[in-house]
């Protein structure tokens, strides 16, 4: 966080603290989770070309049976041996605080912070570094025509969940449904509440920006009974050299032509790279009764890379996909679902007779949920995907038991086969486990998970191995404050007969 950002945040927090004591309402949700898991990776090794032998597949291998990869002209071939077991026990505590009734109608303060660590001491689990993160923290003012936020926040747009330290202002009309939004500040990295300068984002010690990018965005939207449309623009600039990190524009559209029908779509254009990014269009039907829901659509996906990396210059090609999904309730207690997608990459304009690779793929899944009674639910399904790089297929099922709203038990099991395209790693996996959730009161939740994980990495060489383990996780959620329950609802809701369904 830059000095200026710290200063702004400090001013906001300082301005709110004296009033916080007078806040008419507050809600604090503390969510602590811990997980114990182990994984077994690989260890890089090498062998002189002269020491290799011909392996079972005809390619070179080590004398003790490991397939090796030799680069033409090189003196050494490389290969990976099964690595040691790596044990991790990540633990996180996320606190979500909301204050309202601060003396100004419509003013509230929201903050979500997280403390993360690894009880095993290995610090190898992703997402536990840095150990203290402020996910969001801002003052919010909302009235019928104006919304304003100041502080650390994330804006959901077509370009993702863009995080920044700064301000956002939205102006809207009442009946017409028009809204104009502008925001700006010091940006955060994608998918995380850390600045791009954080060492935690650079595990390979690669090139890294020295300063945070400046973010500026705007959007204009119209929400009408029959359609919603929004035009968005986002630019990110490297303040050190005043060059673009990214510049994109996009449109999102939802049309509701008739009851139950919707057409949802959008597209974005990368103004910096000069090409179209991702786009989607989906026609959907959902019966009000919920008995039928179906979609058919097409989409295009192209990854976006910031301009302070070289990846965009490698010309990532998009893929185009057609997809369909259907979910029906043929019987009152039975829900059947299926979905599928077929995709194909654009021509990458690369070819070599030495290597062939997949340029298209498909994925589908089907399943069913049977609600035997208010307490018992059975679910089962199958998923399969095939495409470049990796494929997978497997069954999964669960049996759930709910004793009212207080106790829930879920027994689950799954199988998986995972063939890879570029590596001898045809893994086979069986997993089964149990989950227990106990809600002694609307202000507390306890959850325990335990699962048996048995993996068999079938390879034609010595790198094959079995990998079995037990995995555990636990979770405790506590709520404090007035007007708090598991879903931010006021106490009167909790007094309603029958309570309310947990989300």
């Amino acid at each position: 966080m830059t000095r200026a950002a710290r200063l702004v945040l400090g001013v906001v927090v300082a301005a709110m603290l004296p009033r916080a004591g007078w806040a008419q309402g507050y809600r604090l949700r503390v969510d602590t989770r811990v997980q114990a898991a182990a994984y077994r990776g690989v260890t890089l090794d090498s062998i002189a070309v002269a020491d290799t032998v011909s392996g079972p597949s005809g390619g070179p291998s080590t004398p003790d049976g490991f397939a090796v990869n030799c680069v033409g002209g090189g003196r050494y071939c490389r290969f990976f041996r099964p690595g040691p077991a790596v044990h991790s026990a990540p633990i996180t505590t996320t606190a979500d605080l909301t204050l309202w009734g601060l003396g100004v109608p419509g003013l509230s303060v929201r903050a979500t912070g997280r403390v993360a660590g690894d009880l095993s001491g290995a610090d190898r689990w992703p997402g536990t570094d840095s150990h203290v993160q402020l996910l969001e923290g801002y003052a919010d003012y909302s009235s019928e025509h104006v919304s304003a936020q100041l502080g650390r926040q994330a804006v959901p747009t077509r370009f993702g969940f863009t995080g920044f330290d700064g301000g956002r202002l939205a102006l809207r009309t009442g009946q017409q449904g028009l809204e104009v939004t502008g925001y700006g500040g010091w940006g955060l990295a994608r998918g995380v509440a850390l600045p791009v300068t954080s060492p935690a984002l650079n595990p390979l010690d690669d090139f890294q920006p020295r300063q945070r990018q400046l973010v500026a965005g705007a959007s204009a939207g119209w929400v009408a009974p029959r359609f919603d449309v929004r035009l968005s623009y986002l630019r990110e600039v490297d303040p050190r050299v005043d060059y673009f990190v990214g510049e994109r524009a996009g449109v999102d559209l939802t049309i509701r032509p008739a009851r139950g029908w919707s057409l949802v779509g959008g597209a974005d254009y990368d103004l910096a790279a000069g090409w179209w990014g991702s786009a989607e269009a989906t026609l959907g039907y959902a019966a009000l009764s919920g008995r039928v829901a179906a979609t058919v659509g097409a989409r295009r996906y192209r990854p976006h890379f910031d301009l302070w990396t070289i990846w965009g210059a490698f010309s990532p090609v998009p893929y185009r996909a057609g997809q369909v999904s259907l979910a029906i309730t043929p019987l009152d207690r039975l829900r059947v679902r299926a979905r599928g997608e077929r995709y194909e990459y654009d021509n990458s304009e690369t070819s070599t007779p030495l290597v062939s690779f997949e340029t298209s793929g498909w994925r589908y899944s089907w399943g069913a949920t049977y609600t035997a009674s208010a307490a018992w639910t059975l679910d089962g399904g199958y998923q399969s995907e095939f495409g470049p790089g990796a494929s997978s297929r497997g069954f999964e099922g669960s049996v759930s038991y709910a004793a009212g709203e207080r106790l829930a038990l879920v027994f689950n099991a799954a199988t998986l086969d995972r063939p890879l395209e570029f590596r001898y790693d045809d893994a086979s996996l069986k997993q089964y486990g149990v989950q227990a959730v106990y809600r002694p009161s609307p202000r507390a939740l306890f959850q325990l998970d335990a699962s048996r994980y048995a993996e068999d990495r079938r390879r034609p060489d010595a790198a094959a191995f079995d990998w079995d383990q037990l995995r555990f996780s636990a979770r405790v959620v506590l709520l404090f404050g007035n007007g708090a329950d598991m879903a931010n609802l006021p106490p009167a809701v909790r007094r309603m007969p029958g309570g309310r369904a947990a989300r």
Partner: protein
Amino acid sequence: MRALRVALALAALGGSGASAQQLPAPAAAASGFDHEKHRKLFPACETCHPGAAEPGAPIWPTAASCAACHDGTIESRVSWQRPTEVPRTNLRFDHSAGAEVKLHPAQCVDCHAKKGAPWMTVQRVLPERCLDCHEIKTAHFAAPDTACAYCHVPLVRATRLARQDIADFPKPPSHEQPDFVRGSGHGAAAKARKPVAESCSVCHARDFCLACHVDAPEQAPIQALASDPRATAIVVRLEPPPSHADESFLGGHGAIARRAPADCVTCHTQESCQTCHVGKPRVARALHRSAESGRGIGAVMRRRRPPWHGDNFATNHAQRAAAATATCAACHVRADCLECHRPDAARAAGYHPSGFLARHPAAAYARETSCSSCHNAGSFCTSCHASAGLKAAAGPLGSGYHDATRFFIAGHGGAARQSLETCTSCHAERDCLTCHSALGGRRFNPHGPGFDPNRLIKKNPQMCTACHGTVIPTR
């Protein structure tokens, strides 16, 4: 005639009020005294029921008077006992000392026998006989509002009635009319007389109205009714009006609520709104809180997924959320977004099912969805792969991992352009610059379809200098 009166009075006490509200018969009737069998012995009702004619006199005969005949000699003995239970009735007229109407001008048979019936074929009081005398030319439950009070006291004064008695009240046919529950139905009926129609108060008290009416304090007819917790013995279930069943209602109810909140306050509280609109407390401002004294609890709402969410909404919600963020915010709070978009490292399952780690390669290679919306490639993908040993930067090219394809390095370009995000989860920029740099190495040109050097130079020439140094070629 006196004996007849007594007999009829006996029967009347046995069924006093029961005919009106079907109350259980008292002990006398249950004992099986057969009036018809004794009809030749008793010419007058008052013989056995002197209280029917003389105020203060007992209404029931004594056991000794029965024993005058049933002495074991003339007739067999009987074990008749004078009833001790006070009749449970809401009739204004009965024969007890505390009755509202003790004396009645009618003869016993006028109430307790059908017109023209043989002597002593008595029954419980017959409402149609009451209506006939009072010249009310309708069926019992179709009687005009003003007629009820002729015979019945308000529920709150019918203190002898138990909850079960009230629960067993028959439902008048008018209440079965489709529009009776709402609109101009029961409300108009209640307002037919000021402050409230008397017919309502016969069976109902304010507590009954509070089962539904949130706006009870603002409704004069409801306030005109006295409070009586027994009134809730009649169970009523609040049903949504037909308008709520329209498919467009869920999407358009906000505008209706803003335009005419008074239409909502009858049945809905602030909590109705906040069950779903958790992040928008102000939308409920026009409504009352159920916690306020004297208000009904109103409609009890359940938070459910809207039908248009479909079954794959978690995967497909991005466009809808981007097009109309405020629509999402009506029901969702920030924590809902952060749950997935800022994932918890210690979470075993959530958006992805348990065990997804094992099958994530297939989903990630050809991006089933945009991973970077929720995961940072550096802190999440690369750091984990590096911990597992997949640290390509460990040596030149680091080619050993792709061992199933012998010449992968020679033909990796296509795979890389298709799944570049996957490559970057293990490879650093430096790995690629080993070959793809204009400054040294093998100087392979990485630029492919769609590459626009002039635009990139304009936007960020620094990117070009990574490979080209200060001499950046242009086209």
